[in-house]
Each structure stands twice: as structure tokens, then as C-alpha cells.
């Protein structure tokens, strides 16, 4: 009798124990397993990502820095005591990062729920709904770090910034991206049907934030009734920090804390809302 029990029990116990071990590993690392593959699947369009990451800074820097810069420098001898190219470069890095991050949090997130349903596939594994959200945010943050690094190298090679501290513009770019991208991801996760929402975000959120965020001139030159757009734009906060790092724009400790604090709070709130909305949608 006991022999019979023995011959039946081990495989079962084995299975249960193995499942428990796997689950424990996934509870801790599931977000990374998913982020890793999200990054891997981006390789399908890696060449275009890389192409854009090089081309966009080149275009912007040539058009704004060199073209417009010649005019500005000729008239007023630069802005904030530096040549226009040096002034505008950190802003271009940050706003490109924010734009790219935000775009990755619109249609791709909707598709994960709606068209390809990849999020539902992930939620059916040992991973949890919250991990699906975290993986998405982590993967795109890593990609954003990569893009900002390429941008930074382009800026260095054009003499638009110098080495050293300016390398910290890379994490600032990604953090600024997360500060707007995460709230957008939270919103995208609530959309049942693709409508006009994304083009509205593009037109009435991203574009104004880009144009009125002090990217091309100091925000203070704007009338006060327009400056608020910059205050709520992660692009402005990120750009100010990037300028301090790139050419030493004088910022007080309080200003640095304010800009950094804004980005961190916006990013953290956005991430928390994204996790909550993913959970709701994936466990409905």
C-alpha cells in the first residue's frame, strides 16, 4: 500500500514544488522577463529606431542650431551667454525623448489590449497584470535611454555640447519621457476603441508643450499667460536641467529640486496610474 502511494506521489509533489519555485521566481522577476522580450521584439524596427535616433538630432540641430543660430548669434550674440546651438541642443534632446516616449505609449499600448492582445497573453502566464504594466514602462524607458545616448553622441560630434556632466542629459531625457509617457500610457489603457484621442493628444498636448516649453528661447521671454504651458510640460523641466548639465545654465538648488521633483512626481504618478489601469483592464 505504502509502495503504491510512493509511486504515485513523487511526480505530483514534484510538479507542485516546481510550480511553486517558478511562481516565486516570476513574482520577483516577471516584470524583467517581459521587458526583455518587449525590447527584443523592438528589433523588428530597430534599424528605423536607430535611423531616427541619428537623423532627428541631425536635422534639428542643423535647422535650428546652425540655421537659426547664425541669425540669433549675429543679432544678439547668443542666448544666456552661449551660442544659440549650445542653448538649443539640450532642449532638442529632451523634447525628442519626450515625443518618442509618448508615441510609444499611444498606439502600441492600445494594440496590446485591443488588436494584438499581447497583454492578455502575458497576463495568462505566471506574471501578474501589474507586471505587464511595469514591463512596458521599463522597456520603453530603456529604449529612451538608448535614443538619448545616441542624441548626446551626435551633439558632441557637432560641438553642441561638451563631455563630462552633459552625459547626465541621457537619464534626464528618459525621465522627462517617462514623466509624460507614463500618464499617456495610463490613459491609453482605458481606451476601448481607437478614435480621435491620439491625434488630439498629438495636436493639443504634445505640440503645444513642445512649442511653448522654452525649447527654442527662454520661457521667461513669453508673456506670463502662456508660460503656464511650460510649467506643466515635462519638456521644460527636463530642458532646464539639461541646460544646467550641458553648458552650466545657472540654477539654484531650489530650482534644481523643483524641476527634478516635478519630473519624478509626474513619472511616479503616471506609473502608478498605469499599473492600476492595466490591472483593471486585465482582470475585468
Amino acid at each position, binding site marked *: 500500500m505504502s509502495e503504491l502511494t510512493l509511486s504515485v506521489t513523487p511526480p505530483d509533489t514534484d*510538479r*507542485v514544488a*516546481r*510550480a*511553486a519555485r*517558478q*511562481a*516565486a*521566481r*516570476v*513574482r520577483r*522577476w*516577471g516584470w524583467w*522577463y*517581459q521587458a*526583455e*522580450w518587449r525590447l*527584443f*521584439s523592438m528589433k*523588428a524596427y530597430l534599424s528605423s529606431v536607430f535611423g531616427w535616433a541619428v537623423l532627428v538630432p541631425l536635422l534639428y540641430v542643423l535647422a535650428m542650431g546652425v540655421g537659426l543660430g547664425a541669425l540669433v548669434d549675429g543679432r544678439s550674440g547668443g542666448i544666456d551667454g552661449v551660442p544659440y546651438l549650445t542653448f538649443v541642443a539640450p532642449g532638442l534632446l529632451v523634447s525628442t525623448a519626450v515625443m518618442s516616449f509618448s508615441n510609444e505609449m499611444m498606439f502600441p499600448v492600445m494594440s496590446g489590449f485591443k488588436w*494584438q*492582445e*499581447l497583454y*492578455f*497573453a*502575458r*497576463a*495568462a*502566464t*505566471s*506574471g*501578474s*497584470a501589474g507586471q505587464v504594466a511595469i514591463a512596458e514602462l521599463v522597456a520603453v524607458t530603456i529604449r529612451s535611454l538608448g535614443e538619448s545616448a545616441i542624441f548626446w553622441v551626435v551633439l558632441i560630434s557637432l560641438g553642441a555640447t561638451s563631455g563630462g556632466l552633459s552625459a547626465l542629459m541621457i537619464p534626464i531625457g528618459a525621465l522627462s519621457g517617462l514623466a509624460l509617457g507614463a500618464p499617456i500610457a495610463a490613459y491609453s489603457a482605458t481606451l476601448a476603441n481607437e478614435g480621435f484621442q491620439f491625434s488630439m493628444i498629438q495636436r493639443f498636448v504634445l505640440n503645444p508643450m513642445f512649442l511653448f516649453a522654452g525649447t527654442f528661447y527662454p520661457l521667461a521671454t513669453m508673456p506670463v499667460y502662456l508660460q503656464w504651458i511650460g510649467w506643466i510640460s515635462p519638456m521644460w523641466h527636463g530642458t532646464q536641467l539639461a541646460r544646467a548639465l550641458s553648458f552650466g545654465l545657472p540654477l539654484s538648488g531650489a530650482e534644481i529640486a523643483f524641476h527634478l521633483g516635478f519630473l519624478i512626481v509626474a513619472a511616479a504618478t503616471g506609473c502608478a496610474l498605469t499599473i492600476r489601469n492595466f490591472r483593471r483592464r*486585465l*482582470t*475585468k
Partner: protein
Amino acid sequence: MPVIEAHALTKTYGELNAVDGIDFEVAPGESFGLLGPNGAGKSTAMRMIGGTSLRTSGTLLVNGLDPETHGPEVRASLGVVPQTDNLDPELKARDNLLMYGRYFGLPYSYLRPKADELLEFAQLTDKAAEKVDNLSGGMKRRLTIARSLINDPSVLLLDEPTTGLDPQARHILWDRLFRLKETGVTLIVTTHFMDEAEQLCDRLVVMDHGRIVAEGSPASLIRQYSTREVLELRFGSERNAALVDRLRGFATRIEALPDRVLLYAEDGEESLAAVRRDGLEPVTSLVRRSSLEDVFLRLTGRSLVE
């Protein structure tokens, strides 16, 4: 210990009772079906088993664990084949398997040979390096089933496994599922195809409006709720309903559908002869065995596929 134990399992969305207090148990190695029309609550019940839909009330144990509190543990030994093939279309077939296995926390040393074995099982070995986008519907379905087996699950949840497939692809799939069952995997299948339920399920529950309206093996359900044979008569859409009263004497039970009249009888040919002797000449007639479709019609007054 049953693999699944559900008691008074309920899920409401606002006013709608998607699953309305159902009880069922599934034994290890059993092939269990949830049969019902669209919207009967089958898929919701399946998702609750995986802990990907939170129940409103009731209790549910999968392998002795509550999927809501022990989601990762429960899903570690669960394979899920959802209604739509949510494969990653950008990745190759084999990479889809590796990726999915990774989500279960499995090491690549285990996953690489396992992926090859499953591609073989799904007859997709020569498509291993093909992007999923380029696979046919039947191949995608088989790949989804292969994917659900990557973690060597003891329970496989199949939600409408063959919907949208051509007959040949369906038979290949059924064959693969049979083999799994032979290895001791517990199958839980939702379907609105009675032939599929008859092929795959040892035991099934018929669901309607979130409730279980009958339970048993396909054969016992047919015995209990239908006759051995069915005579289908068509008199033309105008006359079908008008003739019901006159036909009543020739069958145990009668169902008048818009396009035909169903006469439930032990011997269909004999009933047909009797109808003809009475001077009625149907436009077409057909004698067939009773199916689960008839059981469903009897239980709910509606057809499964509308």
C-alpha cells in the same frame, strides 16, 4: 482532489450576471466541456479559473489554490488557449514559444529543446523560423496550442479552440488534443459546436445566461433530453408553423424552427412514412441521430448557433 472546484461562482458586470452562481468540479485527467451560445458566460468562467477575471462572489480552487490570491502559482501549472491567437506577430514561431516560456520563469536550457519538441508536436517544425505574420490561420492556432504547453501544464484551458478553422484543420487539432488527454492532461474546453463537444469531452455542462442548465456525458445528455433520432421536415417557410398541430401525433416532441420542423422520435424513417401516409408531402426530409444541438434546443428553446 479535484483539479477544479467551483461553488456558487458568480461574476457580474453592472446589471449583467455573466456567470450566475455555478457549481462544478473537474477531476484530474478529465476532459470537461462548457457548452453554450455566445454570451452564456463560458469564457468568463475560464478566465476566472486563471485568475485573470476577478469573481464577484463564490469560491474557486484550482489545484487546491485560489487563483486570485495565488495567481502566479495557479497559472504556473495552467496552459491557456484564448479565443484569439494573441501571438507576437513580429516574432518568429519558435521565438514566440521561448518568450512565453520565459514569462513562466523557465530557464532557456529547458526551453530550447522544449520549443523544438512542441513545434514537432504542432507539425510546425519547418515553420520554426517563420514570422508569425506569415502563418495560416490553422498554423497560428496550432502554435497557440503549442505555446500553451511550454510550461508543461497539468490543466489546459481551451476557449473555442477550433472556431474559424476549416474542417481539415479542426481534425488535426482534435487529434493533437486527444494525444494530450492520453498523457493525462486535464482539458477544459468551451465551445458552441456540438460536434466538438461530442468529440472532445468526457463530461460537459450546458450553460445559458450564466447558469448551468444540464450536466452529463454527451451520450447521457442526449439520452436524457432527446430521442434517438430526429426527423427534419421542410414544408416551406409559410407552412411550417401551420402544420405543427397536425404533425404532433407522429413524434414524442416537436420543435418548429423558422425554416424547418423537427420531429423527435425513436425511429425517424418510420415517422416519415407515417407523415406521408397521412397525405403530407414535405419539400425535403432528413433523418439523423440526435445531437447536443437538440439537447440545447430542448433546454433553452434556442439554437446554439444563431
